[in-house]
């Protein structure tokens, strides 16, 4: 299907009263959650999941996707006004956004981040439209070896490119893989690690793990800490940037969009990394690098374009290969599976209406966010004043009912408690939790393709290297590992070498 007939089909699907309504609900909830510090889009998905059960898959998908990119818009508000990122992906925005607010330019900063977010999002949607079906076409030729290798690349990328120790990231991924083996092995029917618990025979519930690691663990970290949330007032007329501002930010916006899209397409690398890379790049190419950190407009426009581009571009591997671009996409993928949609290469032909409807809803959603943001900015600033002591019990309630309603299972809510404390401890000890979720989601597919590839090759492990596409993915994985492992090893060698003389 070519681009234009695809778009025409998408318009038919996405411009119905119901689709528009759920798009609006999705982006508003996303925006709301994004504005609030301490909870991210993952918690928002669990909270809205029960609502989606009664929807047809199209509306459910439009709404859930809207939450994700909506949260990217909202996150910058708290970063700029409070120096406190609304979502982790907008942490970099605070570096220059907060100084701008202190200089009385909060309105301009909010306006610019909205505009660059919109640009970054739209830039990446064009890529989704042009590349996702092509990638799907290519992936039709993938066999188990290719799937295994690209998933391995995604997991290693997720582990090593999260901020912090790459070794801890890897450990987190492998723990996730191990957790995914709990329950019945689909190949042999053998039940693994059930400890005699009936509920464990079906495996752990993805939504419950995500809510524990990202909802409850975040609340445990932030609850009980006194916090002074007094954002300054922002008036409409303070929003307008000067001509100089616009001149300074258009190039960083384009660069940020490119960086973000690239990172988004990589399986495993998410918007947080995209924003950091875009910021680092701006600092590198700037003529006045010392301007950064003191309210440089480049320092907010590039990362905001990047994280929005990344979130949209992450739909490419998610939809075309069924391999999530980051932890958020992983949860979205899980939600899609609950609705009986399994993204894979055939998705673009068998579910063309779903794909193009979703893409058109991205455009509509981004437009809605633009409108929601600029005239209503005062409203979102006021939301920051809702005291967290009222907010946290409410979020816990939505998490409980959301997780419970997936299977009507009290056991799943117990799982939330377990992963809440596990995530809290892992965060405290510097172990990233997003890779664990990636490992858990990809684990069953990874094991299945690994076993199948070796069955086809009669046990010859070289099959992963000899097949050119698979070999290329493994080479990239190897380079990634080496680039991280070599510098510390060399350093250790240099430190020890003189002693040996």
């Amino acid at each position, binding site marked *: 299907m070519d681009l234009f007939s695809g778009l025409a089909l998408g318009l038919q699907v996405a411009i119905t009263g119901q689709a528009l309504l759920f798009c609006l609900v999705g982006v508003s909830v996303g925006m709301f959650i994004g504005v609030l510090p301490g909870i991210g889009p993952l918690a928002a998905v669990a909270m809205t999941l029960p609502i989606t059960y009664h929807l047809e898959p199209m509306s459910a998908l439009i709404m859930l996707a809207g939450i994700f990119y909506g949260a990217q818009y909202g996150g910058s508000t708290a970063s700029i006004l409070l120096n406190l990122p609304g979502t982790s992906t907008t942490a970099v925005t605070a570096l220059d956004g907060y100084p701008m607010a202190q200089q009385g330019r909060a309105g301009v900063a909010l306006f610019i981040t909205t505009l660059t977010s919109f640009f970054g999002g739209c830039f990446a949607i064009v890529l989704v439209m042009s590349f996702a079906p092509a990638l799907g076409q290519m992936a039709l030729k993938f066999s188990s070896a290719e799937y295994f290798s690209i998933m391995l690349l995604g997991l290693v990328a997720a582990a090593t490119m999260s901020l912090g120790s790459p070794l801890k990231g890897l450990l987190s991924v492998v*723990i996730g893989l*191990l957790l995914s083996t709990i329950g019945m092995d689909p190949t042999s029917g053998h039940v*693994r690690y059930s400890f005699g618990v009936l509920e464990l025979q079906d495996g752990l519930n993805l939504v419950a793990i995500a809510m524990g690691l990202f909802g409850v663990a975040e609340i*445990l970290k932030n609850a009980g800490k006194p916090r002074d949330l007094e954002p300054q007032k922002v008036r409409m007329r303070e929003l307008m940037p000067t001509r100089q501002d616009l001149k300074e930010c258009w190039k960083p916006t384009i660069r940020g969009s490119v960086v973000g899209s690239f990172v988004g397409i990589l399986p495993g690398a998410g918007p947080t990394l995209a924003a950091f890379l875009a910021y680092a790049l701006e600092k590198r190419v700037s003529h006045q690098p010392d301007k950064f950190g003191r309210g440089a407009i480049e320092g907010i426009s590039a990362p905001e374009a990047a994280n929005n581009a990344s979130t949209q571009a992450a739909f490419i591997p998610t939809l075309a290969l069924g391999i999530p671009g980051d932890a958020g996409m992983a949860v979205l993928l899980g939600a899609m599976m609950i609705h009986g949609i399994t993204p894979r290469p055939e998705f673009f032909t068998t579910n063309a209406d779903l794909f193009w409807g979703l893409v058109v809803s991205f455009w509509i959603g981004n437009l809605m966010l633009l409108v929601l943001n600029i005239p209503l900015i005062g409203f979102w600033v006021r939301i920051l004043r809702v005291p967290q002591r009222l907010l*946290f*019990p409410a979020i816990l309630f939505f998490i409980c009912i959301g997780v419970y309603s997936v299977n009507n299972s009290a056991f799943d*809510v117990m799982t939330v408690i377990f992963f809440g404390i596990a995530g809290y401890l892992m965060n405290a000890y510097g172990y990233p939790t997003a890779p664990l979720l990636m490992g858990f989601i990809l684990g069953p597919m990874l094991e299945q393709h690994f076993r199948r590839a070796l069955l086809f090759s009669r046990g010859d492990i070289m099959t992963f290297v000899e097949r050119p596409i698979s070999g290329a993915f493994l080479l990239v994985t190897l380079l990634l590992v080496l680039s991280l492992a070599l510098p510390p090893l060399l350093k250790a060698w240099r430190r020890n070498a003189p002693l040996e003389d």
Partner: protein
Amino acid sequence: MKPPRNTQEIAAGLVFAAIGLGAMLLARSYPFGTVVRMGPGFVPIMLGGLIVVLGLATAWQGRTAPKVALNLSPRPVMFVLGGILIWVLLIDRLGFVPATLALVVVAAQAERDITWFETAALAVALTGLGYFLFIRGLGIPIAAFGS
């Protein structure tokens, strides 16, 4: 000068190594199979082994890392997790309304500065909202009262 040994990093790595070892020991009872026809025990044993290696490596790498304050606070852990636990225990026995009221009242204690009036108002408001939205509106099969 040698930096002091970072016991907390070492302990964390060793805990993971122990988890990996435990996983390997449990998986010994599952058929291992061959490389061509892997049994259900093959992948878990490999993953367990990998966790042991990575756990030991993080412990080794972290042994000289500068110590970071853990910043653990027992109060929110107790009340937040306690609140969820009570909800789980009550939901199938006493029903949605008592479970949710109890959850909010307990979880709200995680915050020191919440007043009893705010707690009560929040509990009633959320229970009402949840009842109309989830049970009446979306038809989620939970009893409002009773099992």
